[in-house]
Structures are given as C-alpha cells and as structure tokens.
C-alpha cells in the first residue's frame, strides 16, 4: 500500500465530500494528487464502481480538453487501486474566484479587465462544449489563471473534472452553464453585466450555441418555478 503511505506525508489542500486534494513532489516535479475515498453509506461494491468510473471520467475529460488545445492539468499517473490521480500542479496561479474578488475590492478601471476575463472564460467553455465535454461543476474556483512569463497574458486553466462526462446534448451544456451562473452570481455580487459578457462571448464562439442558450433559458425558468413552489 504505497500510495496511502505517500499521501500521509503529503500536504492536504482540501478535504471535500468525495475527494481529498494534496500537494506533493512526484517524480521530482510539483504535483497535485486527487484521492477519491470510499463513502461508507453507499453499498461497497456499488461505491467502488462509482468511484472508479468518476476517476476514469475525470482523466478522459482532461485528455479530451488538452487534445483540443484547452488547458487542463497534465495527468502524470493514475492509480486505480486507490483511485488517485497524480497531475501537474499549475504553478504561479490564482483561482478566477480570488482574482475577481481582488479586482472588485480594488476600484478603478477593473471593469474592463473583468469583462476581458469573462470573454476568455466564455470562449474557453464554448470550445469545451464543442468537444462535448460537460464539466459538471463549473465555478470560479475550478478555473485557474496561470501567469505567463513576464508580460505574456495569463492563461485560463480548467480544473476539477470530477463530475464531468461526455455529451452532445444542448440540455446538458445548458445546465452546465446554469450551474456556473448560479455559482458566479452568488459568489460575486453585482457581476450581472460581467456574466452577460461571458454568455455573449460563449454564444459568439460556438456555432452550436443557439440551442444551448435556449436550453439555459428554459432551465432558468424551471429553476425559478421550483423556487417559487419550494
């Protein structure tokens, strides 16, 4: 049982409901290890199958994105026995979330910058959906901005494909955007215009976007009705 021993010495970054995220050296490089652990309340055979499938889906989606030129962490090693993914640590990076919070705190002129960022996110997500990758958990914490060398503009890197899957359905893509919209507007108050910019650039970047945006609007309505009833 080499991996559990190794993880016991690694730095724990995040303890989630389904997974733990660690930082460690791997083959001499700075790496992030994502460990999916068994959930006691689920039947153990079923649980093992689900955990394994999530791990497989995560690495498949990462690879699919990278092949299409969408930045995501390089996968170094997958241990299917302990359901651990060893991947590149995105160095010199901040989450889009922290970036927006920072920009909103300091005033003056950041509006333009935030809109540019929103456009970039929109373009990247359009590209991802054109590859039929549904992220499943889009939030501004699951997007990193990696600073480039010197004045080169920073690069947007998508992370945490733990709930991702492959689908061509506009409905799935619409829900993906709806999840982001909810998370975005609740994490970052007064960003309605910024988010609108994101959707505009999404729509402009993908030929298949009209059907997705239509679904997004439908899902919004459903969400509203549900919240009026409940």
């Amino acid at each position: 049982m080499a991996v559990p021993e190794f993880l016991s010495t690694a730095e724990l970054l995040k303890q989630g409901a389904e997974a733990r995220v660690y930082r460690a050296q791997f083959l001499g490089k700075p790496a992030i290890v994502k460990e999916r652990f068994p959930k006691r309340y689920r039947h153990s055979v079923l649980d093992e199958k689900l955990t394994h499938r999530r791990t497989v889906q995560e690495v498949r989606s990462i690879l699919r994105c990278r092949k299409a030129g969408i930045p995501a962490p390089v996968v170094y090693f997958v241990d299917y026995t302990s359901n651990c993914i060893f991947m590149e640590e995105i160095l010199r990076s901040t989450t889009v979330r922290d970036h927006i919070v920072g920009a909103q705190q300091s005033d003056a002129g950041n509006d333009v910058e935030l809109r540019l960022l929103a456009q970039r996110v929109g373009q990247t997500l359009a590209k991802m959906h054109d590859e039929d990758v549904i992220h499943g958990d889009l939030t501004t914490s699951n997007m990193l901005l990696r600073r480039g060398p010197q004045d080169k503009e920073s690069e947007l890197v998508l992370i945490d494909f733990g709930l991702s899957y492959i689908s061509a359905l506009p409905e799935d893509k619409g829900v993906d955007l709806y999840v982001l919209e909810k998370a975005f507007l609740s994490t970052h108050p007064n960003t309605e215009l910024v988010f609108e910019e994101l959707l505009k650039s999404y729509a402009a970047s993908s030929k298949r976007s009209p059907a997705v945006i239509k679904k997004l609007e439908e899902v919004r309505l459903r969400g509203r009705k549900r919240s009026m009833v409940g």
Partner: protein
Amino acid sequence: MHLTQELELFPDVRVTQLLFKEVKNAAELRQSAVDGKINGALINPTMLVDPFQVLVAANKAVCFQKNGKMKTRALSSEIIFNLSPTNKISDAFKRFGISDGDDCVMVVVVQDKSETPCFDDIVSKVDGCQIPVKDISLLSDHMKIKKLYKVTPQEEKCGTLLDAVVSRMATKDVL
C-alpha cells in the same frame, strides 16, 4: 552521466537511466536482454523526449508489479510497454525497444535501495560512448514521436510535447 531518481511512492526503489550514442553492438545487447543477461530495459532513445517520460513509465511499471497487474512478464518489458500509446505489446517493442541496427540506446535499471548501485557491468557491455542523460533531446525524433502519439498542433498550444506524451502514457488503459 547517469541519472538516478528515487520513486516517491516506493522509497525503496531507485530508477537509473544511462544513455549511449555511437553504439556498435546493438544486436548483441538486444540478445543479452532476451537471454536475461542484462539487468535493465533497453530503449530506443529517438522515441524519448525527456528523462521524465522514462520515470513515468518506470513508476507505473513498479506500481503494477506490486499490485500484480503487469501486462508483460518482466519489469523491463513493462517499462517499454508503458511508453507506448497503445495497448499492443508487440507494437511497443517495435517502437520503443532497440533494434539490431540502432546506434544509440537508453538503459533503464530499477534497483532496490539495499543493492549497491553499480553500473560498470552495463557500461562495459555497451560498445559505445556514454553521454549525459539530459542530452536525450539531441537524439529524439520529434516528428516520429508526434506521429506515433498523434499529437496535434492545437494540443501543442496548451503545453509541451512532453506534456502530450506523458498524458497519453498515463491514461492509455482507460481510453
């Protein structure tokens, strides 16, 4: 000249890489490996981008060996198998193993910490010139590598060739 790395997951295991050019006895070396007289994997270095690629293959081989999940019969064959983007063992040997006419070779040795590291035996068996492992990029054939791993220009926009190669090696069992 050689490069030794301890595997973090298996702190008792060390992987050493030795690189040779102007090799004149590739056929003989290959035969010694087949007969089990060389304790190491003999790899065609033109298919390697970086020593890290070898470490990724070796780490996975050691892990699968401990779990009893190896696809081949020996650790050195497993390292060669892991370098390949496909799951066909014969393809892996053809592309990543050495051939009789080759004039350069990478030797990968996996040892236990308790063994005294000694590579004189290997160095004496190779009729060639040992060069620093970090010079591997001088021998790699990028065109051939891109073609075999099917690396597209758009993928190279979001990372290096090494990134593309390593991602495929790491995920090939589930694609």
